[in-house]
């Protein structure tokens, strides 16, 4: 078989080498973004490195130590259906379940999604809330970056030339709850605003991690806001202040989905709703 410019390597290392050495090469994961851009003439890659043939990249596995490894080519459908994403990791499963619709969830992958870093995508804030790390592969080996450091700017990640996402690494799930609350025009659409919240049961109470999506170049996460919510999760005023703090720090766009002003108005309301829902889920356990 020979389609000029099309490559289907068998290993991550081969893929990384091809990416580094082939002019104008782009990785093909699920195709949900790249092929859509090609169809719209927004991308015209001279070469394509398909990751479909690389076994190592697919599936979710448990690591020694109890953490989880999600291969970059794992489809949203699989992530949405994996029961091991529970407790403090449930936020990620909830995010995957709300991406697009069933056929697109059969195609889209976590690696492809985060590599494109759409500011309104669902995984970025959920990965920050879940405390994930991103494993990056190149011809010279692997490195890891905290999710928060992986998303750098509008549609820009920490990936350098010749690098690709090989896996998402998660800490072991701990007792708790989490959700990904998304405001969108229709179900499955990109978020106008999204709130990713992960709660961990502690002996002393509950520890919260919250990140906002759709309101800036990358997921919005402020350690002090986590601390505010951790200290007084059940207090409505605290939830409102936390939301207002996040709204003040946000940098939303005006676009076809909503105005920047509207997004800033929504953030505190969505945060309050997310906190209330997550607390209910936690108490129900």
């Amino acid at each position: 078989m020979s389609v000029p410019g099309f490559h289907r390597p068998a290993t991550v290392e081969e893929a990384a080498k091809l990416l580094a050495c082939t002019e104008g090469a782009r990785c093909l994961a699920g195709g949900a973004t790249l092929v859509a851009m090609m169809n719209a003439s927004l991308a015209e890659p001279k070469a394509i490195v398909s990751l479909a043939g690389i076994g190592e990249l697919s599936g979710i596995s448990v690591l020694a130590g109890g953490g989880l490894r999600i291969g970059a080519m794992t489809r949203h459908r699989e992530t949405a259906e994996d029961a091991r994403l529970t407790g403090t990791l449930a936020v990620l499963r909830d995010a995957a379940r709300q991406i697009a619709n069933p056929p697109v969830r059969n195609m889209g992958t976590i690696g492809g999604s985060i590599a494109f870093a759409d500011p309104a995508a669902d995984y970025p804030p959920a990965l920050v809330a879940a405390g994930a790390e991103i494993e990056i592969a190149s011809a010279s080996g692997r490195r890891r970056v905290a999710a928060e450091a992986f998303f750098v700017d509008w549609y820009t990640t920490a990936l350098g030339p010749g690098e690709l996402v090989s896996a998402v690494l998660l800490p072991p799930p701990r007792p708790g709850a989490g959700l990904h609350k998304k405001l969108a025009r229709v179900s499955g659409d990109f978020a106008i605003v999204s709130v990713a919240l992960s709660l961990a049961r502690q002996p002393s109470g509950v520890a919260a991690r919250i990140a906002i999506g759709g309101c800036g170049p990358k997921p919005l996460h402020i350690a002090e806001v986590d601390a505010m919510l951790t200290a007084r999760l059940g207090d409505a005023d605290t939830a409102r202040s936390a939301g207002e703090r996040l709204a003040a720090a946000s940098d939303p766009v005006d676009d076809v989905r909503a105005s920047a002003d509207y997004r800033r108005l929504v953030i505190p309301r969505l945060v309050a709703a997310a906190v209330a829902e997550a607390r209910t889920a936690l108490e129900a356990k």
Partner: protein
Amino acid sequence: MTVALKINGAAKAVEAGLSDTLLTVLRDQCLLTAAKRGCNQGVCGACTVLVDGRPQRACLTLAANCEGATITTLEGLKRDPTMMRLQKTFASLGAVQCGFCTPGILISAHWLLARNPAPAIDEIRAGLSGNLCRCTGYRKIIDAVAAAGRTAAEAGA
């Protein structure tokens, strides 16, 4: 620039360039025109086909990336009992107007019933959430999928 594909149970060699999608190849070379080009962005669902048994967007699938995959279009499900039941209820309950969305909807509905033989209304809505229809307002489509599920249960299928 030949790609070897498996379509509806048969081997088929097609000509494909780097940017040719499965949708283009199915319609233009294989003359399998059930899958339609609606938006070419993966949003509308009119191009939905089965790849390795699961609904995917043919417009977002590169033909070159399909070697080794099993592709099934609506034409390939002509004699499938669930599909025949769906087509019967769609016709009898008025779930088809212009018909443009219908092949994609039937593929999604078929997969839904394969995993959930007697789905509730909200499960049908979720299962078809990736297919847009501009004509019917969806009510009769949902009724037809529900009816196809029911008749299967009644027939003890």
